[in-house]
């Protein structure tokens, strides 16, 4: 049943097959990985919710030139390179800075942004003005960002975060000393948030950093098409025009003048931001959180029942694998399980689309925990019930189905409800495997509006409502399965 469900889902959400076919089809589909939470480069337009930004406009112009159809996939910065490795996207458009390490493993286009890094501190901090001052201080950085390496090399202790908005929040709260990031991104943050709690404290060295689109080594043909398109767009002034629109100067060539950033999001009250985000978050709940929960829970229960029975079997060949499975699921973080299913399995040729990968990982997780709940519930049915079933001539399966499981179900409802409630909230982890669910929508909105507190409160409210409905269901179900007990 589980496999059937998986297959059905696979058909429903059939992944658009990738762009390695650059030569074959007239208009190849190219999948683009980007954060969507990194204004002004890649963010959701506050009015329409559509993906926009400097990098997005540039890659759209490139696609138009090169004759590609684009599909955008949004993920946290740290999920972008794994997604590229696993063949889930074909290129990254997210201000990826060229460095030797990355050049060794990936193919870069010619740069379309020239910028430099800056050190950001809390407004009241006067101790840090140069990279040398970072020695022994704490810096909030995204794990795989090149700015992290810069901070590390300067001797900073790194606190890992998901993006600039989180880093800025930590700075403002005095939890870290500094963060190193791209000049333009920081200017945008300052303009949008209007924050006076943090400031640009100085340049992160003198080196100019260059940002470009990045492809897998095997996609040289695509990269070359992109380079050709970029050259044309530079010649006809398109790149300069896009840059002027965002920065009032041309950052697509070296030595741009002073960069000015107008806020990506201006003049909305917090209430307006919450109102604008309410629907995208609800959509994330309806299209991500809730279906993920339902599918994973049902599949997980089927797995759990099979594993629980195997675990209690008199056959070692069933018992041992069941124990190992339960031990692995309960002994490893869900986050690691998600990463293995999503980024690891493609390496052995199993490439599931995001939603399916999240369902698989969550189902397996629920299966491991619920198996023990079900086992305990079966053991909670008095042994005499099994004996009574035996003496009226029932075999193992009849006793289970007719006598033991209906009584175990009653015992299992409260603890399984706990499992379900945990699952509702665990689906927020699916955002790291590129599933756009409730929490991811909140992150996207928070990044552009910087109204972190209000938006995460709304997200929490949504989760609470879903969980409240689940607990109402639990009471109804408890009444139903317990009607025979007085």
């Amino acid at each position, binding site marked *: 049943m589980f496999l059937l469900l998986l297959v059905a889902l696979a058909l429903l959400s059939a992944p658009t097959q990738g762009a390695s076919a650059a030569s074959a089809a007239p208009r190849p589909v190219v999948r683009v990985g980007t954060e969507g939470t990194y204004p002004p480069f890649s963010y959701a337009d506050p009015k329409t919710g559509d993906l926009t930004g400097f990098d997005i406009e540039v890659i759209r112009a490139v696609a138009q030139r090169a004759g590609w159809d684009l599909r955008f996939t949004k993920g946290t910065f740290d999920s972008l390179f794994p997604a590229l490795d696993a063949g889930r996207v074909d290129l990254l458009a997210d201000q990826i800075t060229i460095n030797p390490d990355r050049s060794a493993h990936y193919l870069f286009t010619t740069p379309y942004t020239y910028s430099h890094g800056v050190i950001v501190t809390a407004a009241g901090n006067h101790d840090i003005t140069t990279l040398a001052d970072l020695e022994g201080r704490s810096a909030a950085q995204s794990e795989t960002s090149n700015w992290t390496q810069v901070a590390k090399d300067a001797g900073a202790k790194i606190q890992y975060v998901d993006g600039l908005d989180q880093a800025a929040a930590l700075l403002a709260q005095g939890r870290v000393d500094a963060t190193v990031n791209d000049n333009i991104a920081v200017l945008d943050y300052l303009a949008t948030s209007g924050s006076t709690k943090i400031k640009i404290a100085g340049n992160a060295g003198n080196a100019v950093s260059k940002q470009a689109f990045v492809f897998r080594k095997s996609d040289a043909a695509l990269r070359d098409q992109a380079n050709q398109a970029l050259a044309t767009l530079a010649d006809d002034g398109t790149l300069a025009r896009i840059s002027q629109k965002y920065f009032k100067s041309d950052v697509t060539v070296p030595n741009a003048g002073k960069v000015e950033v107008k806020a990506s999001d201006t003049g909305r009250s917090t209430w307006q931001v919450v109102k604008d985000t309410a629907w995208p978050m609800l959509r994330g709940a309806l299209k991500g959180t809730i279906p993920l929960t339902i599918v994973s829970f049902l599949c997980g229960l089927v797995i759990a029942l099979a594993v629980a029975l195997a675990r209690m079997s008199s056959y070692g060949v069933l018992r041992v694998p069941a124990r190992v499975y339960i031990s692995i699921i309960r002994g490893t973080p869900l986050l690691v399980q998600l990463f293995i299913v999503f980024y690891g399995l493609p390496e052995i040729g199993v490439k599931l689309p995001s939603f399916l990968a999240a369902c698989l990982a969550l189902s397996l997780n629920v299966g491991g925990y619920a198996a023990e709940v079900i086992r305990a519930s079966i053991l909670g049915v008095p042994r*005499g019930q099994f004996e*009574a079933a035996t*003496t*009226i*001539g*029932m*075999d193992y399966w*009849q006793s289970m189905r007719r006598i033991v499981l209906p009584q175990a179900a009653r015992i299992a409802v409260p603890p399984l409800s706990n499992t379900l409630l945990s699952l509702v909230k665990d689906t927020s982890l699916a955002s790291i495997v590129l599933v756009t669910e409730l929490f991811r929508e909140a992150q996207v909105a928070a990044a552009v509006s910087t109204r972190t507190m209000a938006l995460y409160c709304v997200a929490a409210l949504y989760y609470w409502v879903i969980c409240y409905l689940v607990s109402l269901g639990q009471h109804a179900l408890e009444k139903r399965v317990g009607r*025979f007990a007085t």
Partner: protein
Amino acid sequence: MTQGSAAAPAASLVEVTGLEKSFGGQPVLRGVDLTVEAGTATVLLGPSGSGKTTVLRALNVLETPDRGRVRIGEARVDFSALPRDKGSRRREIKALRACSGMVFQSHHLFPHMTVLGNLIEGPIQVQGRPRDQAVADARVLLEQVGLGGREDAYPAQLSGGQQQRVGIARALALKPQVLLLDEPTSALDPELVGEVLGVIRDLAAEGWTLLIVTHEVRFARDVADQVLFLDQGVIAERGGPEVLTDPREERTRRFLARVLEAG
């Protein structure tokens, strides 16, 4: 209602030979032999730990004996030489189980089913009988144990005595050749014991073959055609109901004195 008519007239309905069973190296049955004639009531007595319940549970293989033979009607299992392959072993045991019905000390009714549901579960699910026939038979049985009209109640809504009478009816619903009763009144409040014993007396009078483990000596005197006194895993004394009034064996005498004093 004479049971076991299929067996040859000379043979007993139940025949147990050389039954042995140990739990964790501790011998509980050390060679038990017994026979039960069709249509009679046999009472199994003995101090606790003497192995009475184990004998009963060996007859329907809730405990698998280590050695010995059990025959009920035409079904026989030789536990000293069980078939190697699991399929035939299971078939033999299943055939033996089908010959007996069991009444437990603490009834073990299915709490998620109504009284009627408890009675028709075996006939429909195991014996594959048509539902309306099973329901009709179950209603007759419920009348017989004095619970006509309570068929839609759940076990938890009944008194202990009523529950045990449903337990008896459930066992009878399968039309077994012999009814095994494991201390059917021991878990009941004293004032409820009478109604259950009354039902069992009726069954004996109707000619059901009964094998009863009980401490109710006075009741045993009334219904028993045969009395078996079990001590330390062997049958120490056997005979008619006179064993209860005038035992030959000293240990039987001591046991009866203790039980009658307590009762």
